[in-house]
C-alpha cells in the first residue's frame, strides 16, 4: 500500500479537528499547560474566549470539563496521555459515572514518545480507560484519521478518551480513503486469507509493511487499523476469526489490558482463535529515539512477520 508519507503526527490531526469543530458554539477547549504539545493551542489562538487554561492541574481539568458538559457544552480537554492518568478517578467518578459527555485527549502516548523517557511514555492508558463503563477509547494511526475521528466526537453520545502520538509516522489514509473511517468500525486496509494483523496507532504502518513482506513470501495477510478499542468491532473480529488461521495484534502499549487483551477477551469466549499479542511486555521504557525504543521492546516489522509466520 502506498500512502502519502507527508502530513503530521496524530496530535496535529487532533488540533486540526478542533478548528474544524469551532463553528459549533458548544465546543470548549480545556488545557492543562500542554496545549502547545497536544495542539489545542491552534484553537486557543483563534478562539480564546472558548479556551480555558487551568495550569498544571489535571484533576481539576477533568471536573471542569464535567461541569461544562452538564451545562450543554462539548468540552475537549487534553494533556499528555500519562498525565490524564493522574485524573483517572476523576474521569471515572466525575465524568463517566454521571453520564456526562466530554472528550479527553492524551497526546504523547506510547513508548514511541521517545527521548523524554519512561515518565512520559504512557503504556497503560488504553487499558485504564477501557475499564470505565460507557467510555469510548480510540487511538488513531495518522493525522488524517485523528482529525476525522475527533470530528465525529461532536455529537457522540459517550465520553471518550483518544490517545494521539507525538511523532510523525507515514500516513495510512489519504484525503479520500479517510472519509470511510468511523468510530467503532475497524478499517480493513489490506485483505488476505492466511493471517490477520490487527494494529493501532503508530504500529499500523509497520503492520502494513510486514504484510507486504509476507506477501512476497506467499503469505496473505489482512491488515486492520482498529482505531477504536472500545466499543470493539466484534463483527469484524468474528469475520476475521472465521477466515484466517490466526490473529496478530500489534500495539505500542502494554500487552496487559490493551488492544491484544480486548481482542483476546472477545474471541476467547465467542470465537476461539489463535492470537499472538505484540506490545510492550511488562516493563517500563527509557530515553531514546522512537525507532530505537520500539526495537528495544520488540515492536518491529520483523517481529510482526515472525508472529504471522508462526500462525500458519
Amino acid at each position, binding site marked *: 500500500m502506498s500512502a502519502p508519507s507527508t502530513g503530521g503526527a496524530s496530535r496535529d490531526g487532533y488540533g486540526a479537528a478542533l478548528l474544524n469543530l469551532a463553528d459549533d458554539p458548544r465546543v470548549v477547549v480545556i488545557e492543562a499547560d500542554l496545549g502547545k504539545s497536544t495542539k489545542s493551542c491552534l484553537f486557543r489562538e483563534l478562539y480564546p474566549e472558548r479556551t480555558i487554561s487551568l495550569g498544571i492541574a489535571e484533576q481539576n481539568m477533568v471536573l471542569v470539563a464535567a*461541569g461544562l458538559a452538564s*451545562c450543554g457544552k462539548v468540552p475537549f480537554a487534553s494533556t499528555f496521555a500519562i498525565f490524564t492518568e493522574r485524573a483517572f478517578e*476523576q474521569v471515572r467518578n466525575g465524568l463517566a459515572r454521571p453520564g456526562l459527555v466530554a472528550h479527553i485527549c492524551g497526546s504523547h502516548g506510547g513508548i514511541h514518545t521517545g527521548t523524554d523517557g519512561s515518565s512520559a511514555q504512557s503504556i497503560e492508558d488504553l487499558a485504564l480507560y477501557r475499564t470505565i463503563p460507557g467510555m469510548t477509547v480510540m487511538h488513531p494511526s495518522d493525522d488524517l484519521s485523528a482529525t476525522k475521528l475527533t470530528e465525529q466526537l461532536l455529537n457522540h453520545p459517550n465520553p471518550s478518551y483518544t490517545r494521539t502520538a507525538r511523532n510523525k509516522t507515514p500516513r495510512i489514509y489519504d484525503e479520500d480513503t479517510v472519509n470511510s473511517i468511523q468510530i467503532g468500525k475497524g478499517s480493513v486496509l489490506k485483505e488476505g486469507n492466511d493471517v490477520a494483523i490487527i494494529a493501532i496507532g503508530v504500529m499500523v504502518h509497520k503492520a502494513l509493511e510486514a504484510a507486504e513482506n509476507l506477501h512476497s513470501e506467499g503469505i496473505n495477510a489482512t491488515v486492520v487499523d482498529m482505531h477504536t478499542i472500545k466499543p470493539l468491532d466484534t463483527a469484524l473480529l468474528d469475520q476475521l476469526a472465521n477466515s484466517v488461521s490466526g490473529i496478530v495484534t500489534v500495539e505500542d502499549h502494554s500487552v496487559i489490558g490493551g488492544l491484544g487483551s480486548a481482542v483476546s477477551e472477545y474471541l476467547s469466549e465467542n470465537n476461539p482463535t489463535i492470537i499472538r499479542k505484540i506490545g510492550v511486555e511488562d516493563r517500563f521504557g527509557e530515553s531514546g529515539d522512537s525507532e530505537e525504543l520500539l526495537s528495544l521492546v520488540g515492536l518491529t516489522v520483523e517481529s510482526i512477520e515472525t508472529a504471522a509466520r508462526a500462525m500458519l
Partner: protein
Amino acid sequence: MSAIDLIVGLYGTQLNVDSNNPDSIQRDRFIMSKGHASPAVYAILKEHDFLKQSDLDGFRSLGSVCQGHVDMKWTNGVDFSAGSLGMGLSFGIGTAFAAKMDGLDYQTWVMLGDGETQEGQIWEAFMAASYHNLDNLHVIIDRNRIQNDDFVNVQMEIGDVASKVEAFGWSVKEIDGHDMEAVVEALQWSMDTPGPSAVVAHTVKGKGVSFMEDNPSFHGKAPNDAELKMAMEELV
C-alpha cells in the same frame, strides 16, 4: 446536620430553582461536594417538591432515587454526582464558566466539607477560580471539625482554612453556621462581593441532638431505632 441550617438558608433566600422546570439552563446550581451529606439535600429537595416522602424512605436501598451519596444521574434537583471528595469545586468552575460563556446570570453554589479540603484538587480549583475571576461562583465550607475517622485536628489539622482560601485570591467571611441571621446575611454578602467568595461556617456535627453533637462516631453512621427515638424527642 451540621450543614442543614446553611442549606435551608441557601434554598430559602438565594437559590433560584423550580421543581416544575428542574433542568432549566438558567437555574442556579447547588453542588454538594461532600456527598455524604445527602440526607440534608434530600430533605430540602422534598421541601421544594423535587422529591416525595416515599423517595426519602427508599434512601440507600436498591433502585432508590435517593442514592447513598447525592447523584445527578438519579435525583431530580441534584446538579452533581458526589461521593468522591474533592471534586465539587472543580465541577462548579465548569458550570460557572458555562454561565459566562452563555451570557446567563445564574449562580453556582458549592458546599465543601472541612475535611474535604485535605484533597489537593480543592486547591487546584481555588487557584483556578480566582485566576479566572469567577464572580458567579460561591463556596460554603461546613467547618464541623469532624471527618470519617476522627476529629479533623487529629487526622490532619487544616488550620486557619479561611486565611488559606483568602491567600488563594478569594474573599472570605467566617460565621456561626447555626445562626440563621448570620447565614442569610453571609450568603447575600457572597452575592454582593466581586470575584469568587467563600463563607466558612463554623458548625457542630449532629447539631440539636445532645448525644450526637460533636461526636465523630455519627459521621457516617445512621442512628439505631432507640437513638432515633431519643433524637426526635430532643428535636421536635
